[in-house]
């Protein structure tokens, strides 16, 4: 039983004495201010990195096998990576809710879910667009594709869950637990490419898997990956601010109604 409410003597929330950055972040007002200052910089960096990445990407030579479609890679691969990274961020946030009881962890989890779903959808769509010319079909049920689809399902399930419980405070724990359970899917996506594939993954995929990727492809890819990561953090901070504001509005409404 704990009561991190108000300044009651038995409060077990974040100790007041140690004013580390972590503790200070626990205060949403300070977080709002900090995020407000960070977002423009992050957004600017995202734009710069994105512009460089796109330039490098489009000036890259056509692949002798894949032709122009190789350019899809510069969107596809970063968004696939981000889809997984976003889920990892959510899982850490879930730990933050359950173990460290950080007040912003739940806000971060909720804010990340739609972004993750969007990146996953982007990876699915770009993958499909790439698959049509490469494999002759939009979709195959191989391990990697399917596990990404399941990741998408889990994202949607989490969003449905967070919508289903009206009070965000009550939704926090279930959300965190389901998020953690769903994390098993991430290593599955990453490692067990041949865990369940009766239809073979074409060589064109694993060809790039080895570090033999030519520098003309590697650098634009890495730049785009950096741009996507920055984009993620920008969106995440923005969404967290929105979430905090939404909760404040909710409280204000309740206050108004309660008097």
């Amino acid at each position, binding site marked *: 039983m704990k009561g991190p409410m*108000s300044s009651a003597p038995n409060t077990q929330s974040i100790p007041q004495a140690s004013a580390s950055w972590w503790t200070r972040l626990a205060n949403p007002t300070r977080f709002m201010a900090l995020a407000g200052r960070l977002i423009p910089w992050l957004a600017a960096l995202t734009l710069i990195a994105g512009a460089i990445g796109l330039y490098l990407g489009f000036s890259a030579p056509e692949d002798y096998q894949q032709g122009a479609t190789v350019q899809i890679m510069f969107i596809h691969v970063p968004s696939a990576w981000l889809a997984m990274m976003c889920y990892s961020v959510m899982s850490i946030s879930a730990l933050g809710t359950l173990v460290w009881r950080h007040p912003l962890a739940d806000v971060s989890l909720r804010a990340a879910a739609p972004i993750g779903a969007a990146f996953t959808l982007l990876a699915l769509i770009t993958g499909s667009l790439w698959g049509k010319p490469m494999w002759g079909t939009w979709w195959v049920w191989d391990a990697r594709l399917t596990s990404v689809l399941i990741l998408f399902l889990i994202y949607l399930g989490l969003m449905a869950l967070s919508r289903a419980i009206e009070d965000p405070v009550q939704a926090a724990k279930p959300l965190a637990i389901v998020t953690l359970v769903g994390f098993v899917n991430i290593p599955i996506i990453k490692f067990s490419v041949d865990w369940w594939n009766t239809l073979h993954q074409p060589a064109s995929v694993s060809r790039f898997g080895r570090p033999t990727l030519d520098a003309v492809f590697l650098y634009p890819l890495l730049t785009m990956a950096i741009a996507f990561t920055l984009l993620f953090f920008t969106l995440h901070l923005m969404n967290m601010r929105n979430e905090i504001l939404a909760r404040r509005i909710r409280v204000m409404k309740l206050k108004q109604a309660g008097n």
Partner: protein
Amino acid sequence: MRFEADSISVNRGLRRVVQDVSFSLGEGDALTVTGANGAGKSTLLRALCGLLPLAAGTLRLAGVGEGEDDPLIFREHLHYLGPQNAMKAALSVRENLAFWRDFSGSSGGMAIKAALNAVELPHVADLPYSYLSTGMKRRVAICRLLVSKKPVWIVDEPTSGLDSHSSELFSGLCRAHCADGGIVIAATHLPLGLGKAQTLEMKTLFTFFEGDEFFDGENA
């Protein structure tokens, strides 16, 4: 055995509903919690049972050994009779009561027959619970307190739906429980007739959390 609350507070949906409530009840004591609708009686009672977290303060059931200051542990010595009756419509009255007796694991309660006699419903034992009228259902729910023996009764409007004769029966049962060394805490709008009961008058609060505290609402 003593049941003590030391300035406890409870929040509900971003609002402080119970603020700084303290009491200390010894064996044989009774406490009636009164107050207008929405004053926070049910909230307080749920918090006493560990069903809602405390926002501040401590609870203690002295004399039950380990875990006497953790509601999540000592609540196994409490009986909570909430607004719902906790009975399955599909089972007969006897099956329902037998389940709660066996499951609660405490011995020394009344026999089911005796308990039903005490609420003057000896003839319904084998009826499906769903066949009973509102007040009869409530009286069966009261039998749950009798068939398994626990020292503290926490009852939320126990006599709602009861006719006046049954209400008096219930008062008698409470007095008997107190005389037996038990403790009764009852939220009620109607006087329960518990004689020397302490009274706790709840007042509706209008304290909202300020600033950003709401991030740690009730489940934090």
